[in-house]
């Protein structure tokens, strides 16, 4: 009496809404951009070369694939059109050239990244940086110079620049400013 007949169709959601898998309730229509972001942040992807924290390299390190580096390098690193992630155990005393650089560990040396440099909160970077775009987390330590090449600046302004403004104050008070007192 209460069994549904095999020819009955199950009630489905409206086609405008995304459908969800029953196990994880993950939207099957997840935005492509979100997937790409997750992919680019995952250092353990199969297509990323990985250098572990016990590895010490002295000399010239170059390659044509993305690299996750958690060890020590003294010399130079040249990845040209690829991204480099320095892990939290990474200790680099080298000049670095890459498309994109993300630093969790420590870098001593000049950095040239054609697209972007990102300094995470645990990072230390001592050296001069030349890049189109820089993102610095609160807590990162930087000592040196930052140069955004002029032609790159135009592109940066066109794109929405991500400045990690860490917090919005709940209550904002504007301390009044007094007037000019004296001039020598």
């Amino acid at each position: 009496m209460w069994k549904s007949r095999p020819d009955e169709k199950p009630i489905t959601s409206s086609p405008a809404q995304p459908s969800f898998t029953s196990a994880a309730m993950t939207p099957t229509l997840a935005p492509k951009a979100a997937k790409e972001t997750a992919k680019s942040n995952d250092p353990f992807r199969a297509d990323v070369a990985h250098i572990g924290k016990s590895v010490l390299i002295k000399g010239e390190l170059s390659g044509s694939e993305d690299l996750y580096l958690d060890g020590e390098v003294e010399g130079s690193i040249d990845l040209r059109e690829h991204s480099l992630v320095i892990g939290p155990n990474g200790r680099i005393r080298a000049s670095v050239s890459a498309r994109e650089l993300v630093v969790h560990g420590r870098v001593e040396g000049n950095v040239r990244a054609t697209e972007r440099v990102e300094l995470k909160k645990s990072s230390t970077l001592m050296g001069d940086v030349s890049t189109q775009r820089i993102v610095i987390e609160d807590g990162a330590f930087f000592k040196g110079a930052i140069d955004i090449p002029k032609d790159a600046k135009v592109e940066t302004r066109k794109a929405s620049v991500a400045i990690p403004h860490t917090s919005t104050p709940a209550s904002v008070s504007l301390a009044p400013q007094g007037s000019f007192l004296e001039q020598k």
Partner: protein
Amino acid sequence: MRWFRGSGDRQNAPLNNSKAQPRTLRHSAGLAEFMRRIAGEEKLCVLDLGQTSPVNIPFLTQRGARVYNEDLLRAFREKNYLVKQEDGAECLDVTTFFAENFDYSENQFDAILCWDIADYLPEPVVKPLVEKLHKMLKPGGTILGFFHTQDAGPDAPYFRYHIVQNDTLELAQGPNFRLQRVFNNRHVENLFKNFSSLKFFLGRDQIREVLVVR
């Protein structure tokens, strides 16, 4: 000038303790004047002597400036520059400190953001620092410095200054550096006596802003 003697234990507190600290916006007439002076300049070279700021660096680089960051207070905290003299007394090795942390060429910078670090640096460093700033700054270059007023006590909190607009700063508390002294106006004038002009901007909080032009 008022001095604040004490153990200075707060100076040794951990560096990254500014999380979840309240942030306050503060109008800054000195900063507005500073930004007006550097506006429109080509190939601007700016030195920021405060802690690495995730806000200041993008703010200045987006205006075409090449930004240098030099956190002198952190440099003092990370290494002991005290040396023993022949008579056994300890003194600060200022020469080594500047050689390791402040090696810039003459006339290199168009502008320097000094913030209030002069109030927190050890006494033997302050005057040599200002002399170095004079050499490093181009003629006509500008320094923005903050000085605590007489109302500030030794426990006045240390703030990091983030530039959010041309005339507005965001103050983020910490780390726990200890205020070393309070300069009065005459001392500030003497400190910058080799510069061509000084402008004072008085706030209703415990900070005076000073715009110095070489």
